[in-house]
């Protein structure tokens, strides 16, 4: 599988993260998104007329929407990362995959304005981002009341991976995560997964590595 990738793109990171968690090897093609705007060049527009990344190419299959790519990789390599056939799970998974697009446009939009000089109405993007975070916080709190940590079913799924990066990077768009206790606990549970990988702005949990001083105790 070839992933057209940008190191600072949270949507590309979703794909790299799921692949890592599933132990799937991706062949990465670095795209000069900023400052080169290579995704708007002829070669990549031929592959994806929408002019966006990520793009996943697997033989004949070409996918350009991150939620679809997550579903595809999970279907091939990690069925338990998808909803079961239970209607409640199917609905919840689709709900959160759609919700992730709101995070992308609101928090991701604020991030592009604040970090990379993209045009946009920052205040409106931040307001929409805060509304989405409050909604997510309320949902995750409700899940905690029933003893659950993740968004769908009783385990981590692609719904969590789809929503995680733009939430974790909200501060890049000057939207604070400090008020959201349930989001913090949920993000920590994702970051604690075996084979979790970082992206700039999302640090690893150093405490999970062996303490270099432990031998001195």
């Amino acid at each position, binding site marked *: 599988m070839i992933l057209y990738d940008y190191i600072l793109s949270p949507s590309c990171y979703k794909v790299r993260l799921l692949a890592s968690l599933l132990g799937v090897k991706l062949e990465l093609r670095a795209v000069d998104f900023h*400052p080169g705007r290579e995704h708007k060049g002829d070669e990549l527009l031929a592959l994806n007329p929408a002019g966006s990344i990520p793009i996943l190419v697997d033989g004949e299959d070409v996918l350009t929407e991150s939620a679809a790519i997550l579903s595809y990789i999970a279907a091939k390599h990690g069925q338990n990362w998808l909803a079961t056939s239970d209607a409640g799970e199917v609905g919840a998974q689709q709900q959160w995959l759609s919700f992730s697009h709101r995070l992308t446009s609101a928090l991701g939009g604020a991030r592009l304005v604040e970090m990379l000089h993209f045009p946009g109405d920052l205040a409106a993007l931040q307001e929409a981002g805060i509304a989405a975070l409050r909604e997510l916080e309320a949902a995750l709190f409700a899940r905690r009341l029933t003893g659950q940590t993740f968004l769908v079913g009783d385990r981590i799924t692609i719904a969590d991976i789809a929503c995680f990066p733009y939430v974790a990077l909200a501060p890049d768009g000057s939207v604070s995560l400090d008020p959201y206790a349930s989001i913090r606990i949920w993000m920590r549970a994702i970051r604690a997964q075996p084979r979790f990988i970082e992206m700039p702005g999302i640090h690893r949990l150093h405490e999970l590595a062996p303490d270099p001083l432990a031998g001195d105790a």
Partner: protein
Amino acid sequence: MSDQAMRDAWFPVGLLSGLTRAGTASMLMGEDITVGLDDTGAPSVDCGGRKLPTVERFGHLWTSLGAPEKDLFTIPEADHPERTLVDVGVVRVKCSPLRAVENFLDIAHFPFVHTDILGEEDHPEVNNYKVEVRKDEDEVWATKVEFYQPQAAASAGGGIITEYMYRVPAPTCSVLYKTCPPRPGEWDVICLFVQPLTEELCDVWPWMALFDDTSTITDLIHFQQLIFLQDRSILENQIPKKLPLDPALETPTRADLTSVAYRRWLKRHDYTYGAQLVAE
């Protein structure tokens, strides 16, 4: 204290490759500027109807709000024809422009912020190194800086002791010379050029001149953006926002000597835009 010394310094305001006739609205030390090309196609910076002086160098357009006494510094090593010159692009950071430079001069954070790339927790020790202000050039230099790095550059295969030299030739610019794995004896040149928008907001324009025959330009850009963006969440969460010139509420150690030399040099020259003078 006046900002005049900083107003007389040169600052990067855009990539030469990105200038347009339409111009781009930007800011320099709190003043609105427009950066672009004039009617003749020459690079131009306008500040409220006033045309500012310009220099084209290192892939960037440079300007000043005042009257610079000195020409913009040079980097002779970067002229080598076999080097790959890399415009990394701009990243906006909500921090003092001086804090962005200070962080660039720091190696002790590598094991915790650039884990498994520029440092690792098992090798955090900072050995003594040499820091001086070179009188003729009036620049801060840190030399014989050595640190263990798991993956020093995009082209690096494994862990090595990397040697660095840091140079501060202008109040918001730093040049890093670093062991070049494919060319023993040569140095890679990695620069951090910072545009002060306000005292607590800056645009950072990293730029590199490397010997690297194996990586693509895009790989090199991604590597540098990866490193720099790992620092962004640190820079935006230091208290206070401005860089303290009085360390009364801080605890610098020998490992912070480059930081202290940089702050001393800022203090000596009244480069205090973005600095906090009295600790609080």
